[in-house]
């Protein structure tokens, strides 16, 4: 990693102008993975002075500024109970508190990291991103977009539906990246299933979700099998494809069971 010039603009407009000047200019979020990257930045644009470190709530959504650290989210009361504390479970499993004190939500989203434990639960929620110039974009549209969004992420909005959630990270040690991570939610009759670190980036199991929606008596094992058929898994030094698939099968079933409202 090499930085030729460091800038800390005090307005979004200034930051955006710097970003557009040269394709070798780049934004710095938390900078947690900066050291490990091979990037050379002509101008590094630090977003630290733009007051984007906040968690707010209005009647419709939780709004999280892009420079909010994972530690701030981890310590915020809103995530204690939101979707059964699913996001908190995911955030809390990211490395140690030292790294969570610098890693930002915006950096996590913009990086589209396949190993991310945060993107997996987020795609099961109703999320949208607000960019400075491009405006509002659904999170899943942003993640699926092939071209780079050369804009500044201002905030993430999570719609405040009522629901239950489940998150599971499977890793060899507390500090390792996940072999697999699974998020399952249930809200207003709709199940959502997401699997990340397959090792590919988190994806929703849309066919499995559809079959659960259409069924009056949902069969969790069948839905987990369907999810494993439609999602792709791979082999890396951390785990084989078969093992990942077996884990997904088991933890999707457990997740579906955990989020299903209890009926007398």
């Amino acid at each position: 990693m090499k930085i030729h010039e460091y800038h800390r603009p005090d307005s979004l407009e200034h930051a955006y102008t710097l970003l557009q000047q040269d394709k070798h200019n780049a934004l710095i979020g938390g900078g947690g993975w900066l050291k490990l990257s091979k990037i050379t930045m002509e101008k590094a644009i630090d977003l630290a002075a733009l007051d984007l470190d906040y968690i707010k709530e209005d009647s419709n959504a939780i709004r999280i500024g892009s420079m909010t650290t994972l530690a701030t989210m981890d310590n915020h009361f809103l995530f204690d109970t939101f979707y059964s504390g699913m996001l908190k479970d995911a955030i809390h499993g990211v490395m140690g508190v030292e790294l969570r004190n610098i890693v930002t939500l915006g950096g996590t989203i913009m990086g589209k990291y396949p190993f991310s434990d945060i993107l997996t639960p987020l795609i099961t929620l109703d999320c949208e991103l607000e960019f400075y110039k491009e405006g509002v974009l659904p999170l899943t549209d942003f993640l699926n977009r092939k071209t780079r969004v050369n804009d500044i992420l201002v905030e993430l909005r999570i719609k405040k539906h009522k629901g239950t959630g489940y998150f599971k990270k499977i890793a060899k040690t507390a500090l390792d990246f996940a072999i697999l991570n699974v998020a399952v939610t249930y809200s207003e009759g709709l199940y959502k299933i997401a699997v990340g670190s397959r090792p590919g980036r988190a994806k929703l199991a849309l066919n499995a979700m559809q079959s659960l929606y259409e069924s009056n008596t949902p069969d969790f094992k069948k839905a987990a099998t369907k999810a494993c058929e439609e999602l792709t898994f791979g082999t890396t030094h951390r785990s084989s494809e078969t093992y990942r698939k077996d884990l997904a099968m088991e933890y999707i079933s457990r997740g579906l069971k955990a989020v299903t409202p209890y009926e007398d």
Partner: protein
Amino acid sequence: MKIELTLNNRRELFDVAPDEMLLDTLRQHGLKSVRRGCDTTTCGVCTVLVDGLAVPSCSYLSVRAEGKHVTTVEGILEEAEKLSEHFGDEGADQCGFCNPGIALSVHALKHHVNNPGEAAIKDALTGHLCRCTGYVSQLKAIKAYLEADEDE
């Protein structure tokens, strides 16, 4: 780039490169308690406090510390000495390489968590790799230190 920051309660001026990490700035300044371990944010031996928060200095740009309070173990010596006595009592003090980072994380824990229990201590230890112990002795030592600290 010229930056000014408060290092262990003293205002200091530094001339840093735009991509220089705080670990390098501090070590060049003679603060050898801030150690380079994995250099990839995993091991915790480079931990320092920036405005009271424990951060990995190997991945914290020095320019970002401008105007902030940076604390190394030299800034909490009295506290660190008390903690090290408990480490000695529990046999948690072997090679000692990871101790300064842990001492700073314990300091942050004490100031950010009310009555930290075992789960909070384990959580504070998660970001620190110790190759000598199995963390049980450290857990006991930190627990004893926090209890003694509360009694004072």
